[in-house]
């Protein structure tokens, strides 16, 4: 009886560990494969590789489209996060703290871009931009501003989601305690509420940045000549060639996102927010 009681959980635990291991494998295997193939020496990917090389990284560097794409992507992602996160944060505050008619409708509306397929959103925006261009008589599609505006649509739902979650978990007694100690409403917000929201906001900024940085589908129709983002540049390259250069570019992308997450995690423990 006792033996069974002690044996059983360990069997269950072993099974659970195996499942977790499998899950990690499924998640990381493609990433590992991409990183590995970026070093394979043949143009056609064969396993096992005949040799290892840095050649594809040099090749990627020599292609001006990739470098320009990387710079554009970084710019757009940064701008989208810088503009989108404050808007999303303000919206989250209104949704959680405000009491007004239509609050739930607004909340749903702000999360909606997550539910719309990117290509559809991109096509919709493209048509909207064309119409707006006719009315305003100025360029919108194929401009950086137009692209940033589209990517802000990615930043807002992520920010609203994460900041709403952090606001709902926030102990309001701390704000009352601050008022009790003599802090007026603005001071309470600046000294207590905002710092307590910080993990949510930092996470929101990071997710917004990553969402924009790796976005292909919305950008596809909105980029203009000379202002191509990195994922679009990669797609363009793929039209003419298949070789590990793309794996090398993807590895750089993965590295940037990875570094970003590690650095963010130093400031706020992501596991506590997400």
């Amino acid at each position, binding site marked *: 009886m006792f033996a069974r009681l002690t044996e059983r959980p360990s069997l269950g635990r072993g099974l659970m560990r195996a499942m977790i291991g499998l899950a990690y494998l499924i998640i990381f295997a493609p990433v590992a494969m991409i990183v590995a193939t970026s070093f394979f020496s043949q143009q056609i990917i064969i396993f096992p590789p005949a040799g290892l090389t840095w050649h594809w990284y040099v090749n990627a560097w020599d292609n001006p489209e990739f470098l320009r794409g990387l710079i554009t992507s970084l710019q757009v992602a940064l701008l989208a996060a810088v503009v989108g996160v404050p808007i999303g944060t303000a919206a989250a505050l209104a949704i959680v703290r405000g009491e007004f008619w239509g609050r739930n409708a607004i909340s749903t509306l702000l999360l909606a871009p997550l539910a719309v397929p990117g290509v559809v959103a991109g096509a919709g925006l493209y048509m909207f931009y064309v119409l707006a261009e006719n009315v305003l008589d100025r360029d919108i599609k194929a401009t950086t501003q137009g692209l940033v505006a589209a990517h802000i649509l990615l930043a807002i739902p992520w920010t609203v989601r994460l900041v709403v979650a952090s606001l709902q978990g926030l102990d309001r*007694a701390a704000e009352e305690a601050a008022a009790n100690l003599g*802090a007026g409403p603005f001071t309470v917000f600046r000294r207590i509420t905002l710092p307590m929201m910080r993990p949510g906001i930092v996470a929101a900024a990071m997710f917004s940045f990553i969402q924009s940085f790796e976005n292909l589908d919305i950008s596809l129709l909105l980029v203009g000549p000379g202002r191509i983002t990195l994922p679009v540049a990669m797609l363009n390259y793929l039209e003419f060639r298949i070789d590990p250069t793309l794996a090398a570019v993807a590895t750089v992308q993965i590295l940037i996102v990875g570094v970003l997450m590690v650095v963010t995690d130093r400031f706020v423990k992501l596991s506590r927010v997400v």
Partner: protein
Amino acid sequence: MASLEVERLTKRFGTSLAVNELDLSVRQGELVALLGPSGCGKTTTLRMVAGFLPPSSGRVLFDREDVTRLPAHKRSTGMVFQSYALFPHMTAADNVGFGLEMRGLNGAERRTRIEEALKLVRLSHLAGRLPRELSGGQQQRVALARALVINPRLFLLDEPLSNLDAKLRAEVRIEIRALQQRLGLTTLLVTHDREEALTMADRLVVMEGGRVRQIGSPRELYDEPHDAFVADFVGRCNVLSGRREDETTFRTDSGLLLPVDTGPDESNNATVFALRPERIAISPGSDGAIHGQVAAVTYLGAQTEYHVRIGGELFVVIRQTPAADEPLASVKPEDIVSLEWDRRTPRLVPHTSSNGRSS
């Protein structure tokens, strides 16, 4: 330190009355406890005194000055929250210093006051820690220091001990009471724990359904409850309903006749017989006028609890645990025992006090 007056304070949430025409006063240096079951309106009352909640009607006065319309941050009360509500991103010292900063004290002065306050709660060595690096008891002491360092006009405690374990609770209870008396703090304490209220408070306010049931010293409430609710809530009590037969007899609903001595203060509408379990003497055998069968004997260490079935009623008796050679020591379930009490001890009270707002 100020005195506190609450006049006809009322709070409505939608159609329900959370607090109903509450009158209350706390003298300078006095500790008054609001005691009642959850939902009785005690926390709502405290929050209105602190200024977190606007009353629907009525007034709150500090030192006879009307503060009803004053926002929380201008009332200068020091509150200890049930969750402690420490600022998670600030060290213990910064938490304590926050109120001083809001009062515009300069850095040097602030540091001295923070040091003093932390010394008061014996936490000087942990000044640099963040709240999450402190134990529950330590967090609670930071919260105390933070509330006291500003020399508040009023000290407010919202279930301050409910998140501590039993042993620590007993210690902190004595500690807070000593601090309150030494510093002469005018204090309003909210609690649902009668032991906490009885041991800490100068006066108790028993609340139920948004109304005051009785106000008095712990001894008054324990020995002279005005109604069955207070009798039962302030301590364990044998509460039997029935009616007064004559001046020396109470007849329970099941027909049991119990000896009482109704004084002139006890009204005729008394329908409840209330007797504390420790005021009943118990002896083996059927010699007494009131005797019955033991239903259960529960050993509690220093005391022993007996459940005795007499007629259709169940009496709870608590006595000091008898020594092994006493006859009572051998009493076990199904034995016959006799109960006896001083006929002046039982209280005959109405089921619910018609005069709920008397003191």
